[in-house]
């Protein structure tokens, strides 16, 4: 089972950090506390039972209809241990109003670009990142395209019956395609 090693290690060494564990399709995911993220990753990297030294990626999954029962974004981290030949998945949940997670660039040098990409496409802010700016899109781009409320194609056209389409993206009603509110 991929990821069980990391989950066991975290539960043993940082018992307060683990919120939930879930197994699916031969992989184990661990939901951890946002405040414990840096400590958890440092532990996974340095502990001889973990040695998760390689960052694989960080991304986020947007579930806009989930709030307020559960936070809107799943920030997903995948780490790899070459010594134990294992991959683990950590998930941190953040809300729409406070999409911040602490940066991991000082734990894994390679997280730098992946965090910038996640900020660029999903609008997750990585607090403490030395240079958090867009990486794939132009710097003056409006909105974060991989959010579910970002229209994927088509230019909105305003007619007399839908004048709100002429509004700039930031002023459009919240449930409207293209709205960045």
């Amino acid at each position, binding site marked *: 089972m991929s990821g069980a090693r990391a989950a066991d290690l975290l539960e043993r060494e940082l018992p307060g950090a683990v919120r939930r564990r879930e197994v*699916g*399709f*031969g*992989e184990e*995911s661990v939901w951890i506390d946002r405040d414990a993220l840096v400590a958890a990753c440092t532990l996974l990297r340095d502990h001889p039972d973990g040695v998760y*030294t*390689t*960052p*694989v*990626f960080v*991304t986020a*999954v*947007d579930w806009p209809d989930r709030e307020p029962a559960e936070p809107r974004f799943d920030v*997903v981290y*995948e780490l790899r241990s*070459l*010594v134990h*030949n294992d*991959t683990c*998945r950590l998930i941190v949940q953040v809300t729409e109003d406070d999409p911040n997670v602490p940066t991991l660039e000082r734990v*894994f*040098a*390679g*997280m*730098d*670009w*992946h965090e910038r*990409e996640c900020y660029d*496409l999903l609008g997750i802010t990585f607090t403490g990142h030395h240079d958090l700016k*867009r*990486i*794939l*899109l*132009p710097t003056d781009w409006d909105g974060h*395209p*991989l959010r579910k409320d*970002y229209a*994927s*194609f088509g230019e909105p056209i305003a007619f007399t019956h839908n004048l709100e389409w002429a509004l700039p993206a930031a002023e459009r009603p919240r449930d409207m395609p293209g709205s960045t509110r």
Partner: protein
Amino acid sequence: MTALPPFGKPTIDLDPVSEQYEAGREQLGVEHGLDSVDLVQIGESTMELNMGPMHPSTHGVLRLVLDLDGEVVRECRPDIGYLHTGFEKDFERHTYQQCIPYTDRMDYLAPLFNNLGFSLAVERLLAIEVPMRAQYLRVIMCELCRIASHLLWYGTGALDLGATSAFMYAWRDREKLLDINELVSGVRMHTSFIRVGGLLADVPDEFYVLVGEVIKTFPKLIDEHERLITKNPIFRQRTVGLGRLSAEDAMAYGATGPTLRGSGIAYDLRKAKPYSSYDHFTFDVPIGRSGDVYDRYLVRMQEMRESLKIIGQAFEALPDGPVNTADRRVALPPRNELNTSMESLIHHFKLVTEGMRVPAGQVYQAIESPRGELGFYLVSDGTTRPYRCKVRAPSFSNLSALPHMVRGELIADVVAVIGSIDIVLGDVDR
């Protein structure tokens, strides 16, 4: 494969003149005075230089902002995104089979690997095992594609350093592999040959002739390539000791593939996490010693030979049988059933118009592409379209280590280092 040594010994002798290689620059007569560390101290002012995005050696549209002190690079800031196409967003409004052609266009030099990674991820969510013949054909096609990709890297990498003839020979041989792509799928590059549940179609008879010819002739052709470059003193002076990446740094930056193995770590997903029956074949994982440009060159040249070994074994043992799964959640009903069964007709219609339904859940499927770990993190919500598909591109992580590798090197050597990490900008930007 469990007990894989992360810091292993080289599995095969990489270089017949290894003593000379070990000694590195001294034996080659490169003076210490030329070492970058001394030059960094010259002068107080730096110059900012734009390299690219339209520069022949950046292999696409990559812009580097270089802070130069004389000819020495003090800082390098890559600027990417010129080829960003939003494929991940496109995935979310297409059915699973419709996503396959999009994956072709990400890493356009290794399209079959992208097909394979995506298909394997969906098949894992569906809990489908494709027939053995399809698995073997996937391996053969992927390894042929790996050789084609490495040949292109070899040709352009050598061209960047002024070896024009190598480029011609590499193109000559790559053409033979593209002919096989054309034969099985009708197109030379964006094949979409590997689909969810199996393959586009079984291979025609001529396939056996062409692949048999590749197995027979390519070892000699690779020898020919190596004779041109491997012991060439000019090439060695340019590359030995250049762009070093230590094993620890390679891991911390998430570098994978030949970039990681050049630094001496024998980690290959084909051995570490076998997929598509790679565990049926015996092959070695070549690794380098010091992680410089020359090591990465040697690793890739050896990998082509290892790929040929895999192709030979898979070709010999290629089983008979279907090339597509019989699982009706994915496979279309056979044509003759449609004449008699209304249910089959409805099912056929639903599969074509709506697409297959994939159980809800999340998987991360990684495969070893020519550039490293290509991963698909797929989240399904139980409908006919992916809810979210994150592509973990090997070139993206490898390129993020570039500033670390070129800091303190000469500007002319930046070209050699970019060539050695073998980036594809379509893969970086997606």
